[in-house]
């Protein structure tokens, strides 16, 4: 994907704002931000982020491409929609944040070891296999994402919780073997693949 990144950098050399407009979902709204800071003040996780939406939008206008796309901010959004509800200019801020995350991921610029970003990838991979999320496998994948030793430690730490869930029939060990799937898994996979092709073509066309 770094080829795409190079191509995009080349194409939008003069304006990162224009690049965002063309390629990021709801990106055409970024120019309408009036820098009031209400989003930044409304975000329940604001102080856990590298950049608030207000800052991100300012950085986009200032052409800080690398800093924006490698920021962890978009990945920390919990979609609480506080910012959208409060933005006096009506910007779909949550959607812009997710759009930015997507675009960064596509260009291969998203922060590598950022946990929520990793979780998003694991979740996606898990979902794509059977068309629905296998919670047991998803949990285990998260435990072992940082290696086998760490995985065992994580599993031991949550042992009690797991046992209780099994007792309450909230989780089944049988899910480890195959697990449930939707009726037409390959149909879904084809559909997603087609969607990806369309999206890629659009982005490639812009590059």
């Amino acid at each position, binding site marked *: 994907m770094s080829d795409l990144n190079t191509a995009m950098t080349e194409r939008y050399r*003069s*304006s990162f*704002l*224009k690049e965002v407009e063309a390629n990021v979902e709801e990106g055409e709204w970024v*120019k*309408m931000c*009036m*820098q009031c800071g209400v989003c930044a003040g409304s975000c329940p996780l604001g102080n856990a982020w590298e950049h608030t939406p*207000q*800052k991100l939008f*300012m*950085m986009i*206008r*200032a052409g800080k491409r690398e800093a924006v796309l490698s920021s962890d901010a978009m990945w920390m959004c919990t979609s609480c929609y506080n910012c959208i509800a409060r933005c006096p*200019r009506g910007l779909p801020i949550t959607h812009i944040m997710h759009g930015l995350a997507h675009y960064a991921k596509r260009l291969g610029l998203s922060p590598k070891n950022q946990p929520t970003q990793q979780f998003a990838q694991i979740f996606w991979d898990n979902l794509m296999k059977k068309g629905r999320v296998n919670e047991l496998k998803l949990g285990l994948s998260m435990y072992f994402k940082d290696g086998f030793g760490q995985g065992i430690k994580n599993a031991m730490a949550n042992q009690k919780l797991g046992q209780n869930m099994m007792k309450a029939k909230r989780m089944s060990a049988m899910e480890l073997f195959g697990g449930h799937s939707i009726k037409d898994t390959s149909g879904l996979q084809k559909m997603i693949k087609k969607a990806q092709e369309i999206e890629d073509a659009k982005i490639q066309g812009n590059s």
Partner: protein
Amino acid sequence: MSDEKKFAGYICTGCGIGDRLDPSQLESIATREGKMQSCKQHEMLCNSEGVQMIRDDIANDAVTHVMIAACSRRAKVEAFNFTDVALTRANLREGVIWVRPDADEHQETTQEMADDYVRMACAELRSMSKPASSGEQQLNKTIMVVGGGITGMTAAIEAAAAGYPAHIIEKSGALGGQAADYIKSIPTRSPYSEPQDTGVAAMIASIEANDLITVHLNSTVAKTAGAPGRFSVDIATESGAVVTETFGAIIQATGFNLYDPSGLMQFGYSSSPDIITNGELEKLVKASNGGPIKRPSDGKEVKAVAFVQNVGQSSTEKGQLSYHSGIGDLIAIKQAMYFKAQNGDCDTTILFNNLRTPGAAGEDFYRAGQEKMVTFSKGEVSEVVAGDSLEVKFKDLILDEETSMQADLVVLDVGMMPNSGPDPYAVPMVIDEDAEKTEEAEVKAPTVTVDSILNLDYRQGTDLPHLKNGFTDSHFICFPYETRRTGIYAAGPLRRPMDMRQAQDDAAGAAMKAIQAAENAGKGMAAHPRAGDLSFPKFRMDGCTQCKRCTVECPFGAINEDEKGYPMFNESRCRRCGTCMGACPVRVISFENYSVETVNQQIKNVEVPEEFDEKPRILVLACENDAYPALDQAAMNGVEINPWARVIPVRCLGSVSLSWITDSLNSGYDGIVLMGCAKGDDYQCHFVRGSAMAHERMGKVGDTLSSLNLEPERVVVYEVAITDVERAPKLINDMAETVEKIGLSPFKF
């Protein structure tokens, strides 16, 4: 009409007056002590029957002087509007029964209060005569408009539309003013998204086609003499020819100049031809004739432009403007759109700290700018470095970092400075207070122009007085177009910074005021704020000592001096405030219905009980514009006022004669409360300087008190606003407490 005076009193017993007070006692006071030749009671004097009774007496019995003892002089004004007689009102309702508790133990003092108010009204009436205009008045419907810009043109068009001929005096060779250089203006119509046509060409065409409007190009005002209704103006053309025209009223619409940023080295204005002001940008774009906008240095097309906002404005630095023009950011958005319209890829960056886009239209225009991809960066510009490409260094205030950008052209948002002519009070005058004020003003405001614009032939200087920063003085809240020269109205950016739309509204307002002034001058009536008042000050010249206090202290420059230093009064320049009357040390100035004598008679006719009665008397001189209505409102709210108080309304605290203070102290009053309007930079005085003058004069009253061996606490001066409904009565009651503390005056007989 014969000169014989006939006095008639009328006592209203309605609104509870008859229940709370003894009307027959009031009637006998009016006839025996007050020497009213007749006195009638009516149960509701303000109804049509009561009013008709008074009318009939005036018509059939030749009554010339009417005393009405009823409600406040501010109530039922329409009903008790008898123009052919001298009229006074004893305030028994708001002044007495509504401010006193209805209980037996208070009955005696309440009745005494009412008795005194009737005595005072009768005494005042006896020393009044019916106001009549001087007979000098002239009606001249022609309006002179100085300045042919947007404001001046609008004023002339509006005056002409109302049927009043107008003359425009324009210094340059063409109408249009600064706006003639503009490509477009800030939008004034929905959807407020595109700059719109300035309308200058259409206005010029409509003026040229209008028979009522005469245009004098390349002309200046060499001399303005006379007064409203009879201004005589010498109009000088560039060639040296002078024509004299007469006018009824004048509108000054001389606009503004832009601040010169040469002195602000950090913006490099002098270091590169590509660093220009927002005013110069209009000319640059106009020169491009719709083609690519080229920068001045080498004619290269502008691909990136930076707008640096708020240059030399809202600053505390010396030599910069302490105020903000308010519209610079809208102008920058408009100008950025010029570039976007020409080349959508042109980088336009507006570097602002506080973006001000006033009004709903402003917000829409801001959004429209954002939609057109104008970049708005919250940043503080520290330096503009000249070079082939200009470097704008700034601190990004959102990202909190020092950064910079490159631009082909930098546009500086400089502020508007009024082109108002020299301030007549900028030279130290006889009064010390004015001199102090001037020194302050000089440090604050950079001088725009020293050439006089109006060349007024007035004792107090050639031009309209300034408030601060060169903006003309007016009663900003209540009477925005007014100036301190009657019949001369200021419109447009010499009053305050404004855009074209506001200037046009302003011009229309000023035109209406000018028409009113011309009409009133024709009838010999005051224009403002005592509109319709026929009384005017008369000078008993044989008593005048040529001290010049009246000519210097008149807030409106109404009084000239002859070569011997005697005052030369101009009735139609006068606002009828009486500041001259308060100033005159030999008491030779008086109005027909308001004079040193009318108030003195009221003071003397209050019954001052002997010392062992332990009934003090407190004199309250309350400005009729703010303090008196505040007391009325307090009465309506049922606020109690001390029964020792006797309130006399005055036209302005500036009209208060020191003799009233000394005389009342000598006749045994125990305390004196003076209530005027707020003074100073944010003054509320309807006559601008009256309250300030009064405070100044009363500052010396301590000497009088100590020469009488009296405590200084006995005389207090307050600034009271119309909203001080609780405070105004309290100030009076406080004085009653003070008197109780320090004891009664030893001057009772």
